[in-house]
């Protein structure tokens, strides 16, 4: 061995040692920072109009966090919930998301939002501050964000299969009723295009929008009754939101419209909403979801037992957005384990492809477009306020961020994996319109 090579060796090893030393110092430093609890932000309205739907999701998240802590936490650290109340005020959602991601709280992940309006308000904040948001509610699609994971249904996981089912039941005329905001309007636009593509004439489609909290349904229901009495099988596709549903269904019952005359299939009515209604006159009306409380699986029964025990209410119901949070939370936990850190960029990469059991006995996978695979089910309302599943897709369906039935978005896809990393890729021209892949 020559002196030069020896010198090289020493130099090299000292550099290596130095590097290792530096590395271990850095790791040590990170560890001290990481020793504290992992902070999980919960951004659901606990007051205002949306409290009726969102406050149960907050309780569910607290339950899931409790359970995870009992099982030893994550990466050997405990989870700590950070709860805020945006009071059904869309701009407050954005402000509180900013508070969560900066300052003392500095959460590692946010579970939250219900309405599309609140999600649209939070979106620029989580993108700017590089946060993680799990959004648990069915929505209108036509959106893809690098920082948001959509665990609720996209239109192709709820609306389109529901319409397919009704077509197979012989429905020829369609009344699309919705509350006047972005989700019903976009969904109905997609449905109208889809129905027309399937040969339904424009005259056989009736579209009607009503304001939030609408309660004076008499003339609209009578209009639907008239529309449905033309001798051909008619169905109502309802995107009516929130508490406007109770007076709507009461009016249906009072005017004597039963499910065998004109069935109603709803996209925003679940077990929670039915707790305020006497369901005996509504038996047979339908809802399309990816989960029902009556789903027959041991995972579901265990979940219901946990939930009843946690709330201490024997009558407590579970619903689809709760399942979405259950899936989302478990996916995030698994991605954190896989990445070995709660670092947002690492989790964003590791979560794609993660598969966790859902509550209907199968499994859901996170797709590269930040949507998940879910089975689609049609349930009919029973007199005890539950749904009975009458139809189900044979396999799970992957959520599609950009609808194939709208001319503006039919060529678009979203894929957040490297090297593409693009939320809005035109497959015809292969140009990326949104995301890091655009540069």
């Amino acid at each position, binding site marked *: 061995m020559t002196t030069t090579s020896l010198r090289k060796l020493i130099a090299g090893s000292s550099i290596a040692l130095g590097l290792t030393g530096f590395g271990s110092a850095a790791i040590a430093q990170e560890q001290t920072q990481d020793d504290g609890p992992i902070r999980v932000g919960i951004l659901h309205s606990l007051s205002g109009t949306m*409290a009726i739907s969102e406050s149960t999701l907050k309780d569910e998240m607290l339950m899931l966090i409790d359970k995870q802590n009992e099982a030893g936490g994550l990466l050997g650290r405990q989870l700590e919930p950070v709860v805020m109340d945006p009071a059904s005020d869309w701009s407050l959602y954005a402000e509180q998301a900013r508070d969560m991601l900066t300052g003392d709280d500095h959460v590692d992940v946010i579970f939250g939002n219900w309405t599309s309006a609140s999600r649209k308000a939070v979106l620029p904040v989580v993108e700017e501050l590089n946060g993680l948001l799990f959004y648990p509610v069915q929505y209108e699609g036509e959106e893809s964000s690098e920082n948001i994971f959509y665990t609720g249904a996209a239109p192709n996981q709820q609306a389109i299969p529901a319409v397919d089912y009704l077509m197979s039941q012989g429905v020829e005329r369609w009344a699309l009723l919705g509350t006047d905001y972005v989700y019903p309007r976009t969904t109905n636009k997609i449905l109208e295009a889809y129905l027309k593509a399937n040969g339904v004439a424009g005259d056989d489609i009736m579209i009607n929008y009503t304001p939030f909290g609408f309660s004076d349904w008499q003339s609209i229901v009578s209009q639907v009754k008239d529309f449905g009495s*033309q001798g051909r099988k008619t169905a109502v596709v309802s995107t009516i939101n929130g508490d406007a549903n109770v007076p709507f269904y009461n009016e249906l019952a*009072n005017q*004597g419209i039963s499910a*065998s005359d004109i069935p109603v299939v709803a996209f925003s009515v679940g077990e929670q909403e039915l707790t305020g209604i006497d369901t005996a006159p509504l038996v047979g009306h339908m809802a399309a979801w990816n989960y029902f409380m009556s789903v027959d699986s041991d995972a579901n029964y265990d979940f219901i037992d946990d939930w009843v025990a946690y709330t201490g209410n024997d009558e407590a119901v579970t619903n689809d957005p709760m399942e979405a949070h259950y899936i989302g939370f478990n996916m995030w936990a698994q991605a954190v384990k896989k990445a070995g850190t709660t670092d947002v960029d690492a989790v964003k990469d590791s979560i794609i492809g993660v598969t966790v059991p859902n509550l209907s006995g199968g499994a859901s996978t996170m797709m590269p477009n930040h949507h998940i695979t879910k089975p689609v089910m049609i349930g009919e309302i029973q007199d005890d306020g539950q749904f009975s599943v009458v139809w189900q897709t044979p396999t799970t369906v992957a959520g599609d961020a950009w609808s194939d039935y709208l001319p503006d978005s039919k060529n678009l896809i979203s894929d957040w994996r490297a090297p593409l990393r693009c939320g809005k890729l035109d497959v015809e021209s292969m140009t990326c319109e949104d995301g890091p892949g655009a540069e």
Partner: protein
Amino acid sequence: MTKIQHSTGRFLTRLLMHSVLLCLLMAWGLSVSQTAAAAVSDAQSRALLEALDTRSFQAKGDAAQAIAESDAEQKTRWLQALLDGRLGKERRGERFYIVTDDSGREWPIIDAITFEDAGTGTRRTVEVFKINNDLRTRIQGLLASLSLSAGNETSRLAAAERLVGEVTADNADSVRAMRDDEESQSVRGQLDVALALYDVQQGDIDALETLRGNLDTRVRNTLTPIAAGDSELAAEAQSVLGGIESKRAWYDRAQTLFFGLSAGSILVLAAIGLAITFGVMGVINMAHGELIMIGAYTTWMIQQALPGQPGLALALAIPGGFLVAGAFGVVIERTVIRFLKGRPLETLLATFGLSLILQQLVRSVFSPLNRRVTSPDWLQGAWQINEALSLTLNRLAVLLFCLVVFAGLWALMRYTRLGLEVRAVTQNRAMARAMGVRATRVDMLTFGLGAGVAGLAGVALSQLTNVGPNLGQGYIVDSFLVVVFGGVGNLWGTLVAGMSLGVINQVLQPWVGAVLAKIIVLVGVILFIQKRPQGIFAPKGRTS
């Protein structure tokens, strides 16, 4: 692919309909000749129920049909349980159960074959047989045909009504025979319509006479294609159809008028309390909506205290809602409004703050979730005047209630001492005080009265809409609109304004949709107020 599914679906539905109808007819004919059936063995019963354990709704329907045609004594109970979603099978076993009460999480169950008590079951242990809409219709048909052997008039009438538009060459003769044997006038009339419709389809012009003026939509739908031709029959059918259409149009107008008056009555109820506090006293009370909400919550609380008696609870809620909301009103007047007399801007802000406090109070005490107020049976459903016109009972009741409240209030203002003092204080406070009227006491009582009437509105609204913390917010703007439009300080103005806004809104709604109808009404009222600031009814005489 969808196309094919589509037409098969239709075909299946038709087929189902026909088999049910055929069954009905058979039962009708056989009802007398049916002898006491010999009971079937347990093994046979088991086999009958076993057939229901399938995923295919078509196969389940066939199994139900087999049960209906069998000699099993339990068949009516089985079919009823299947219809109610209470017939099931042991998940890991071979026994069949009927769930006797499925309200809780632990269900009491009985053996489906012996009807012996079988302890309790849960969703984990008992798998209930599912049915869908088509199957439900089919089972209802089967049960109807089983009950036909009892032969009561209601079920015969129901069966006859189902026959309209469903008479074919296969069953025409038996229907005709049935019609001749039928004793009941109404069933006979319904069978006549069914037969006439069939005869018209076969080209019989004379049969059209029976159908003249019939409002059944199935008659209209069957005649429409027939009238499209250019034969003599088509021309005659055209004229019958024209008659039907114009008759329907009149009933439609009557219905729209009813819708309008009922929507108007809600506006009047909500606004009339405000007409007293704002119109007569001049207090801008932004918490008026929350007083309505308090009335609605009182109804709910009385109903909680009297489980199983929604009718009695509602009757008690009328004085209850009035007193509770009135008491809140008196407290608000004594603690806040009294000190802000003559300072409208501060009153507005203070009462607005009060409305937020009351909302949050309700949220904290009763939870943010909506509360369910059940309607008594006599307020559910509709009064079916004929095929084209029906009035929903809850709306009709609210309309009558509104008129009664209005009449009561008007009489109170017109004929009682309190009414006289209120009018005196409003017209000239100083003079009234000089005459010995205790103005502050009158203020308190007037505000309490307005609040109490708002509570009555809450009782009525609990039958129509959600009872929740936000109930009042939806009505505050409308209430001010009605009072201003009607003319401040005039009860008649409030009545006329509320009713006319309701009717205009309901006339516009089918044309332009609910959102635009509301905008048009709002713009219309603004323009009207520009032209005539004193509203429809101007206060007479001098005002100070």
